[in-house]
């Protein structure tokens, strides 16, 4: 797959893919979320209540503390990154938010409702979608069907109606294929539409996973290392897709990422975890200069920086 031209040299100035923005769908066509299109404003949007709020989340696995007393508040429309060294508890946090883990302590607030454990089976109905750190595509389905599966929670026809092709089943199928096709166009995946998902290269599979999460137009999108294992240009491309998706669907994004450079350019705010604790939660610039963050990532600066005498 040839690299799109916009994938190069747009790291700092703009992470938007011009093609994505130009070719993007009218918001009304993919309605469901908030209709307003906030354009390319990099300023965080101030909304009244947080979309997602974690209060005093604690989680441990048999004595190993994965998360300790985590508070997190994510506003509507924000791109919030969660970073931290390996084993800091980032994935555990995403799993708590998506209900895969039940925290030992604390509550999770999702647009108004409060949960001790988020009901995973109802997650899609709550407007939450996620991707996984390790690819979690349905390898035996085509790319199109993988993406259409993201709308499975809406299906109301039963199997008998589907087998006989009666009732609303045809209409549902047509509708979900249409929407899946729109998302595939949006994420530049139309060329691989009919291929089995398992046969795609890694970077494309990651993007298909994003498409599957986006097709439901979630209010909250959780991305667990969406750029892990990608080349620098693929990362830039993915970052532009994430940002374009936020702008197009007014989706709030919570993402975990190792690559601090990409995160700085992409997120509105960054929370930093270390050993299961939140050690910082601020704008990219503030985080960049936070001594505790630097310590966590690079170790405490030595007095003997030049290494003289070693």
């Amino acid at each position, binding site marked *: 797959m040839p690299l799109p031209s916009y994938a190069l040299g747009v790291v700092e100035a703009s992470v938007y893919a011009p093609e994505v923005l130009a070719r993007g769908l009218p918001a009304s066509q993919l309605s469901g979320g908030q209709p307003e299109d906030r354009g390319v404003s990099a300023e965080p949007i101030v909304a009244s209540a947080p979309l997602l709020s974690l209060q005093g989340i604690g989680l441990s696995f048999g004595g190993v503390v994965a998360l300790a007393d985590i508070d997190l508040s994510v506003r509507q429309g924000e791109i919030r990154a969660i970073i931290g060294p390996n084993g800091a508890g980032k994935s555990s946090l995403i799993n708590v938010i998506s209900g895969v883990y039940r925290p030992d302590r604390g509550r999770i607030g999702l647009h108004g409702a409060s949960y001790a454990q988020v009901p995973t089976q109802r997650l899609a109905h709550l407007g939450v979608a996620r991707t996984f750190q390790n690819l979690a595509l349905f390898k035996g389905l085509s790319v199109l069907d993988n993406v259409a*599966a993201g709308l499975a929670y809406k299906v109301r026809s039963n199997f008998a109606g589907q087998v006989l092709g009666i009732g609303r089943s045809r209409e549902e199928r047509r509708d979900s294929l249409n929407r899946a096709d729109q998302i595939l166009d949006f994420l530049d995946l139309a060329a691989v539409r009919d291929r089995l998902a398992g046969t795609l290269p890694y970077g494309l599979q990651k993007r298909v996973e994003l498409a599957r999460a986006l097709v439901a137009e979630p209010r909250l999108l959780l991305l667990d290392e969406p750029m892990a294992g990608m080349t620098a240009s693929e990362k830039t491309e993915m970052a532009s897709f994430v940002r374009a998706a936020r702008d197009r669907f007014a989706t709030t994004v919570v993402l975990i990422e190792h690559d601090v450079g990409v995160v700085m350019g992409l997120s509105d705010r960054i929370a930093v975890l270390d050993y299961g604790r939140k050690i910082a939660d601020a704008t990219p610039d503030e985080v960049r200069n936070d001594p505790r963050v630097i310590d966590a990532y690079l170790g405490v600066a030595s007095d003997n920086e030049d290494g003289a005498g070693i």
Partner: protein
Amino acid sequence: MAAIPAEFSSAPVLPKWVAPVLLLAFAYGVVPLVGSSYLFEAILLPFLALGLAGVGLNILTGYAGQVSLGSAAFMAAGAFAAYNFNLRIDGLPLIGSIVLAGLVAAAIGIVFGLPSLRLRGFYLAVSTLAAQFFVQWALTKFSWFSNNSASGVIDAPRLSIGGLALDGAVGRYLFALTIVAVLTFLAHRLVSSQTGRNFIAIRDNETAARIIGIPVLKTKLLAFAISSFIIGVAGVIWAFAYLRTVEPDGFDLDRSFQILFIIIIGGLASIRGAFFGAALIVVFPLALSRLGGFLLGDVFDSGVLDMSQRIVLGALIILFLILEPDGLVALWDRIRRRLLFAWQST
């Protein structure tokens, strides 16, 4: 995308329904006229019954990813249920007993599918053994099921649909063929429907399926129910059309394994694969016995035949798992593509 092989885009131009329709036309129009009684009794009837059972198991194991070793139990449940409905409800048409028998098998399938909500893989396979042993035990223990026959053997009723007697070999063949064709068509529709795609999603990644809102528990139980329904009806064909007299011991664990081998050899997650596998399983012992008798003469008695069958079958399964994990269907498709490609390039 340069990676898409060119041969896919220039693949066959015929619509997909042509081959099955031609095959059915042949099966209905030509086979009854030219087939011998041996062909029907020894090859086609067991082939149809086992093929349909393979379709049923493939829905559960190939598509929904739930391994089951209880297939023979559901065949037995179907056979004995149809026998009892036919015996005890006056005026119930044969088709009625068959549908009810399928529903009984489906209900039993749901019950023994409940462990799948917590268990996976080998653990689930072992728990489905419970179905295998329980059903066989119940049918032997309670003689009511076999109408108090001393040996537990049941005799099939006369086969007739709408006054049309189907007792001869050809009649039973047409009876089985019709049921198998209808159910296979419905199964094909099912696996390409939303429900079928949900099966595949749960097979490929259960956590992701749950997260995107596929009702995992309901879908798994539905897979057990539909699969058991089809296998139950296959059991009716086995008992009523093929053997005519069956006993619970005919539906033992060996039969369950046989059906599992059918879908592994034929191709998992493929409706056609079940029939490829069934054809091999049915024809293979006959071919082996002819071949053995021809090569070795009297030394090749039934004991040797049985043993060599197991050895060769076991070796075949291992070979298939290693060389062609996608089964005969994948092999067939590849050969067909090569031939088409060769034909097009000449």
